[in-house]
């Protein structure tokens, strides 16, 4: 390869080269210019600019073909064109694919006609005219009007509830589903039986099975609203928050334990418990979002709400070797900002803003300027623990701890522990501790207003300069490279959402709600260009801008934010979202299966004063963002209460033939329990579950750990074997949804783990004396909340004969391993 390049350089020096063309007479030049502009430049633009443009050449052999000078110069292998000699020109070699090591363009060989054009151009002297300014490649223009009408970001309008042929449908949600089913020649399934319903609802809302007695009570309850009462009971249970917090923690890449060189996350549970409480107390979603992004910027805050900042406070940190040059460390620091921006934008907005780090987003209307405007918010925010105490007491404790830590450091350096100096330091520490009675309050992983600057420390090394309350704007890092800064972008929200609606310039919640509702034009509201004007996005004014970011998420991006959270909640109830890419609501994401329903639910969640609509439409409430109402609306729907079974035989079911994936929800989806519910259920039926709420995390491998799986210790470096085997996502990045895999390694856990073994043993040894049949019945009641069938009795009896304690344990263990225990109909 090297010799080839050398040869080319030599050849091009000897060849007549470029001068021949430039001496051409004016008419020839005009013809040559026309040929180049009409035939050659479009070809280069189409096949080469993507990699070989001036702003990308660094990644592509330093070769750029989008300007005259660059094209003539060639790349780091030398010139690519030898005028008049196509056979010696590297360009021709590359496009002809004659050399296996040099084949361009990489996606496939050009058509012969195009190769022939290049051949002719070089043969004729490879004339290159001056590229005009107009000829330079322009950034793709975003058509904002079109972008703002994309289904996920357009305002939530009033959605007409479909007329139902069955007037009895009390829940509008069902009207949407049934209308769509009818449109497609399908019909909903029958309602599931009551035993199935209570088991489904119990696992779904609190993550635990009902007891046999619960089931019996529900079966006996003949009140017409027995099911609704049951739902309310589960929604009011403190276990509801435990169940639903875990879904949120997957998004937040929650972690209890990080490598020892990182800031400790020992008190991470304060954040976890905050999320549990927030769901239990049904704190409105707008408040829930705001506190996680900017609790510290919220007036009149209850001190325990600082724990909400764990969403960013528990972000992954990457190793920064300060013995290296700042240019290396800058990239790593930028990676951290990137991960935070990614987690925030995907969690709250369902947008993959991080795709715009190196170039404008390839699919969505998000620019690199947008990216760095938001990255500036994270660059102005630093991880820092704080006690859950009111200010300024918290600051005093923080400061005292900082002093004590630094005194302890200096104490370590003193060898002689009995020296005067050492004693003096110890006394100093004791004084500080005495003066600060709350110094040992748990420190929650939170954040503070502080910017990280990567600066040189001497000629070789780096130091991190943390500047408190000095928010910073970042430049665009060209191609994602901090060493190649472009223009500085003020901190602000995404341009996509910075348009005015009506005359509202700065919108507060209520005005947005009103405007969005009254602006809506039926099922597919569009942005009315008369009342909307694009404007420069407003700069964030207050500190890092986290507070304004949270406001923008809830107001400017309100429609999107509402759709995203509604879809997440829906997906956990049904096992699949109305949008199947819960963290990507952009072009690359899937479209909703029921867009009107999603919009209707989102508008209901947001709430706001309705002018009309009657009782039926106002099923949720006027006050916005109440999640439990959304849960209730979903789980009390007829759609949710459908049976998961296929009524007809599998081969003849028309529904199965028309919609095998159940996209339109003609039945309920059967679901596998996640590891948390499955482990908790085993502990529960064995009578071993300690269902206390909250507190520090505990290693799941401890045989004595009988707490709910939610409280098991989650490590970033050290993942628990059991969790890993059962699809628990690695907490290194935002996880939109879990995979559901079925592997033999999982079944080894059933067959051989001491955990399953001990639950089986606990159940067996707890059985009262009685006949084999009675004992079998008790086991079925505990595990499956039903009595065994005649066949099951027969199979069980055969297995248990001759009876022995070992055989009994073996039997119970097999039952714990059954599909019926793991799957919910």
């Amino acid at each position, binding site marked *: 390869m090297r010799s080839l390049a050398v040869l080319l350089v030599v050849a091009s020096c000897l060849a007549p080269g470029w001068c021949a063309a430039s001496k051409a007479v004016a008419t020839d030049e005009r013809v040559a210019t026309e040929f180049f502009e009409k035939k050659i430049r479009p070809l280069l633009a189409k096949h080469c600019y993507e990699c070989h443009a001036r702003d990308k050449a660094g990644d592509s052999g330093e070769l750029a073909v989008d300007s005259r000078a660059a094209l003539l110069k060639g790349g780091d292998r030398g010139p690519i064109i030898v005028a008049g000699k196509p056979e010696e020109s590297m360009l021709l070699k590359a496009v002809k694919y004659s050399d296996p090591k040099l084949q361009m363009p990489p996606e496939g060989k050009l058509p012969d006609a195009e190769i022939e054009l290049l051949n002719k151009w070089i043969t004729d002297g490879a004339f290159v005219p001056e590229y005009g300014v107009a000829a330079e490649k322009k950034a793709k223009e975003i058509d904002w009007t079109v972008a703002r009408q994309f289904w996920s970001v357009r305002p939530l309008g009033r959605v007409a509830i479909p007329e139902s042929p069955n007037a009895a449908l009390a829940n509008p949600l069902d009207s949407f589903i049934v209308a769509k089913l009818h449109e497609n020649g399908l019909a909903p399934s029958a309602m599931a039986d009551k035993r199935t319903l209570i088991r489904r609802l119990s696992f779904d809302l609190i993550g635990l099975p009902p007891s046999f007695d619960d089931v019996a009570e529900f079966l006996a309850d003949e009140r017409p609203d027995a099911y609704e009462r049951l739902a309310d009971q589960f929604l009011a249970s403190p276990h509801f928050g435990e169940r639903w917090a875990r879904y949120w923690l997957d998004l937040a890449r929650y972690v209890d334990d990080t490598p020892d060189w990182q800031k400790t996350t020992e008190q991470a549970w304060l954040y976890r418990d905050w999320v549990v409480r927030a769901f239990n107390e049904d704190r409105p979603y707008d408040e829930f979002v705001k506190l996680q992004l900017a609790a510290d910027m919220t007036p009149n805050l209850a001190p325990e709400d600082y724990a909400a900042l764990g969403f960013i406070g528990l972000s992954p940190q990457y190793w920064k070797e300060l013995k*290296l040059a700042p240019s290396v460390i800058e990239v*790593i620091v930028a990676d951290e900002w990137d991960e935070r921006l990614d987690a925030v934008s995907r969690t709250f907005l369902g947008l993959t803003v991080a795709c715009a780090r190196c170039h404008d987003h390839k699919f969505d209307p998000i620019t690199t300027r947008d990216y760095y405007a938001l990255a500036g918010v994270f660059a102005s925010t630093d991880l820092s623990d704080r006690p859950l105490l009111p200010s300024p007491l918290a600051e005093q404790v923080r400061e005292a701890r900082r002093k004590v830590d630094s005194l302890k450091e200096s104490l370590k350096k003193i060898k002689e522990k009995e020296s005067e100096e050492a004693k003096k330091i110890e006394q100093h520490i004791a004084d500080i501790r005495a003066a600060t009675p709350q110094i040992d309050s748990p420190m929650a992983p939170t954040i503070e207003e502080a910017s990280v600057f990567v600066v040189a420390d001497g000629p070789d090394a780096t130091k991190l300069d943390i500047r408190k309350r000095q928010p910073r704007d970042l430049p665009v890092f060209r191609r994602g490279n901090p060493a190649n800064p472009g223009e500085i972008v003020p901190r602000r929200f995404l341009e996509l959402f910075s348009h005015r609606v009506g005359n509202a310039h700065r919108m507060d919640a209520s005005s947005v709600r009103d405007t969005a509702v009254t602006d809506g034009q039926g099922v597919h509201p569009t942005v009315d260009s008369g009342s909307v004007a694009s404007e420069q996005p407003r700069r964030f004014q207050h500190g890092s801008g986290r507070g304004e970011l949270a406001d923008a998420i809830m107001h400017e991006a309100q429609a999107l934010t509402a759709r995203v959270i509604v879809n997440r909640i829906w997906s956990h109830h049904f096992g699949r979202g109305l949008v199947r890419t819960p963290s990507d609501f952009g072009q690359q994401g899937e479209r909703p299966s029921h867009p009107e329903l999603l919009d209707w639910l989102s508008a209901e969640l947001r709430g706001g004063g309705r002018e009309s609509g009657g009782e039926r439409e106002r099923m949720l409430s006027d006050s916005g963002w109440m999640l439990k109402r959304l849960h209730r609306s979903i789980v009390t729907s007829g759609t949710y209460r459908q049976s998961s079974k296929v009524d007809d035989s599998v081969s003849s079911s028309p529904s199965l033939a028309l919609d095998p994936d159940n996209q339109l929800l003609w039945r309920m989806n*059967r679901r596998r329990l996640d590891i948390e519910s499955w482990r908790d259920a085993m502990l529960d039926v064995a009578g071993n579950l300690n269902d206390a709420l909250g507190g520090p995390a505990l290693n799941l491998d401890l045989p004595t750990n009988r707490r709910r799986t939610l409280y098991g210790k989650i490590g970033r470096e050290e993942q628990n074997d059991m969790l890993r085997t059962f699809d628990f996502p690695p907490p290194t990045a935002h996880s939109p949804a879990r995979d559901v895999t079925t592997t033999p390694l999982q*079944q*080894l856990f059933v067959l051989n783990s*001491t955990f399953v073994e001990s639950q089986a043993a606990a159940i067996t040894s707890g059985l009262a004396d009685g006949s084999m049949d009675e004992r079998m019945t008790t086991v079925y009641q505990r595990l499956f909340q039903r009595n065994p069938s005649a066949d099951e009795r027969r199979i069980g009896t055969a297995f248990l004969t001759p009876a022995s304690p070992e055989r009994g344990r073996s039997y119970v263990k097999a039952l714990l391993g059954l599909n019926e225990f793991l799957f919910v109909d």
Partner: protein
Amino acid sequence: MPSKQSDISSSLSRRHMLQTLGGGFGAVGLAGLLNQASAKELAAHVAPRAKRVIHLFMNGGPFGPDFLDPKPGVVKFEGQRPAELDSFRTERKTAGLLPSPFQFAPHGESGVPVSELLPHFAECIDDVCVLRSVYTDNPNHGPALLLMNNGTIVPTRPSMGSWFSYGLGTENESLPGYVVLCPGRPVRFSILWTSAFLPGEHQGTYINHSNLDPQKLIPYLRNASQSADEQQRQLELMRALNGQHLKERSEDKQLESRITAMETAFRMQFAATEAFDLNYEPKHIREEYGSSHFANGCLLARRLAERGVRFTQVYYGDGQPWDTHNDHNNSVKKLAKDIDQPMAALLRDLKRRGMLDETLVIWGGEFGRTPTTENGNGRDHNHYGFTMWLAGGGIRGGMTFGETDDFGFQAVHNRVHIHDLHATILHQLGLNHERLTYRYAGRDFRLTDVAGKVLHDVIA
């Protein structure tokens, strides 16, 4: 191990095509590919040369000029630090040049020079392609380990073994498809074999083989209290009761696939126990490999390769034993003695069994070491240029590729980035590194990110 195809009938024709394309690779693991890539994209993948990979990982980073990249000229500069080395910044400060004291001689028909540290391995050199010009992006262990294993320094991406498993599936449903052997804990640990956003079944199964009792190697592999007969009866009970449950739910493939997985797990207890039990190896084979942890790792790797495991990594040791910041020469003598015989035995053994052609063996660390000294007798990390070798799996033997500068500091000719190495491994496995993608967080991810070129010059 992936679950069964959820829709078997519709994928049969595609499977058939893929099997034909894939040179007879088991189709089980193609589930992921079929879900993600269209058949048209797959058709562009290349003919496979290797079915599996064994990676001998010298964690900590060995120094190439001790083994396979002789730099006799450095002697003249001993203790000096030529001006052209000023710009090379590594993790710590290094001083003047310290020549490697080990002698080289040409070996085999190819005459590739090998140092006296590797007398056994030297006999296999005609099967080995020495890459003298590998470089990576960062001189710290963590990022360099991540780049080598996960193709990026950001700890959020799938490991290469997960990509292999995702791309090819498993050949043996009774064993994990991707096994990581280490007699201890390597630095950064499980992130180095994570499946990240790829389906969880593709993560590496980490096995600390310092204890060779097979039942302690895989979590939950054997049952302490039940006999095999008793388990068999229990399995039959589960089959019968699950059958009752399935009767009304026969359309649900996930129920059936769990029943199958349970039976596979039952067989796996014995298959895996057998695979991991070195007592099945005859004495002369045990002796050929030697008795160190690394020797056992190499022999286990061969047993797993025989049984269809796609990717076995053998970490040299606990922590990072090759990280010789002090007393480099003495440490390296011991380390070399430990790896020489097992590496040679592995290559010979694979060859005898006719497996070397389809097993790609890779050797190297996460980076190399500096030709300049640290602390007088140590060597610092060097990411500018280092040595690795490849053998088998369609790689040309008896050759060297690339060059470092006169001091062995920086790769200067035919430079090989880790992305290029990954692209080449995937290529040998029949996978096009630009087309093996997974859609996540709004874009298609690759092991090689947006870079990587296949090293066609080293392919036989």
